């Protein structure tokens, strides 16, 4: 196991990772730039209310941003997602999203692909919080699908 992998196995480190992404979320501002797609995620629950934006061009996710009111898990999982998927091709991103969804469903997953997102590996044990851990991920999934539909 590499140092990085063993770090991501340490509950204390994972807890701090979530706390850090919650207190200081990355890519946490929206833009008016019309090149960006936008998804407002507010219908799944009455608590979380976030907007995710992405710039997808030539099959590559060039940028991801988000903002809104949400719990630690929603905020941190979206922040981690924005770091992880930024710069990835749509194909790479889809593979990562699918592994992530497996993880939050309590199924087998490829931890190497998920990097910091493994911090969410235990969320499936609190069934009512799974939607928190997937809110931002579903937003990017939707934008990827929209972008693919346009280019078909």
């Amino acid at each position: 196991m590499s140092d990085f992998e063993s770090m991501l196995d340490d509950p204390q480190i994972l807890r701090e990772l979530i706390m850090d992404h919650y207190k200081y979320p990355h890519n946490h501002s929206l833009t008016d730039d019309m090149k960006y797609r936008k998804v407002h995620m507010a219908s799944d629950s009455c608590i979380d209310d976030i907007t995710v934006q992405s710039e997808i061009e030539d099959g590559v996710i060039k940028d991801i941003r988000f903002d809104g009111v949400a719990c630690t898990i929603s905020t941190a999982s979206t922040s981690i997602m924005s770091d992880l998927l930024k710069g990835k091709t749509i194909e790479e991103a889809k593979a990562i999203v699918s592994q992530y969804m497996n993880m939050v469903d309590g199924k087998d997953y490829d931890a190497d692909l998920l990097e910091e997102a493994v911090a969410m590996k235990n969320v499936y044990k609190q069934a009512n919080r799974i939607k928190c851990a997937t809110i931002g991920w579903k937003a990017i999934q939707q934008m990827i699908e929209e972008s693919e539909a346009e280019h078909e």
Partner: protein
Amino acid sequence: MIDVQAVRNDFPMFKAHPELVYFDNGATTFKPQCVIDAVTSYYTEHTSNVHRGDYAIAAENDRLYDGARSSFARLLNCQPKEIAFTHNASASMNQIAYGLSRSVLKKGDVIVTTEAEHASDLLPWFRLQEDLGVEIRYLPLDSQANLDLTKAEACFDEKVKVVAVAMVTNVLGSILPIKELGKLAHKYGAVFVVDGAQAVPHMPVDVQELDIDFLSCSAHKMCGPNGVGILYGKYELLEQLEPIFMGGDMNARFQKAGTYELKHAPTKFEAGTPNIEGVLGAAAACDDIQAIGLEAIHAYEKELRSYALERLSALENLVIYNPDNAYGPIAFNAKGVFSQDAAGYLASRNIAVRSGNHCAKILHEILGTDSTIRASFYFYNTKEEVDRFVEAANDISLENAIGIFF
């Protein structure tokens, strides 16, 4: 005095979950064995439809179903024929709003309500704003959702046709001055509608003394089954109110040409086969809380709440939003912790509370926060449970809230 330990022995949920502290009674309540028995007796002893059968079990079923109106009539001090059963409190409010939209209301008329209302007392009126062009006005509330009566009359003029308010608001537990508001409504010729969902289970509500025209509440918040709402109306007003649902049992006759004659209230509001077993369970619950006594329930809950408030107020990590209200739930947050994270932490300590905006989505402008944690009590809760709750609340921190995932 309530013998709480004896009361708790009647509730199977406490046996199934001896470790759980249930402070989510504003959402729904536990059921005593007598309610469960009343529901199952329908399945085991007198399964049949209502108002349709010519045989003995059907007659018994009719007697019990229509008899349930008497239980609620005693509770609210009205006549049994002034009680109709709907599917929940929202259904009752929709019935009232729809009925009034077909008779009393027209474009430009005003509905007076408050910003502390539950969705069930706002969205039916919002739809009339959209469909009919009525206007909605909000009574002025302070930061703990209390009404300053001296300022209330400024909302009134001859255009006000309906006043619709919750007797007890569901997040902050403020008690609105119902009798005075009723007088004000009637002075301007308006129909006075009260959402009793958070009041009727917890305190004496006398619809005659308060001069309430229509009232809604739900059985499941008073230890009864889900799927049963209560609609009270003064009989002459119920007779004038058009039913929202048309169908079986509520009609007297109809002809090929499309003409029809409806039954009288309350049956005309009960289209289709009702939730018969639910209504029987609701009556059992209604009888049960009356046997305990609404005065006693109210006094006990007040005492429990003030004990909880006193102990919670001593905790430095909390902000309490309704410390001055003498009654109802306690709305709070832990500093720097999102409400759902804090509720998740409390859940990890076996304490059930609700987080979020509690279906009162425009209240945040009064409250100054988007979401809160709500701890709501009932007569079967104890000071020992409050102690466990306070102990756990003292430990709410961002670190602990995230810690539940590891």
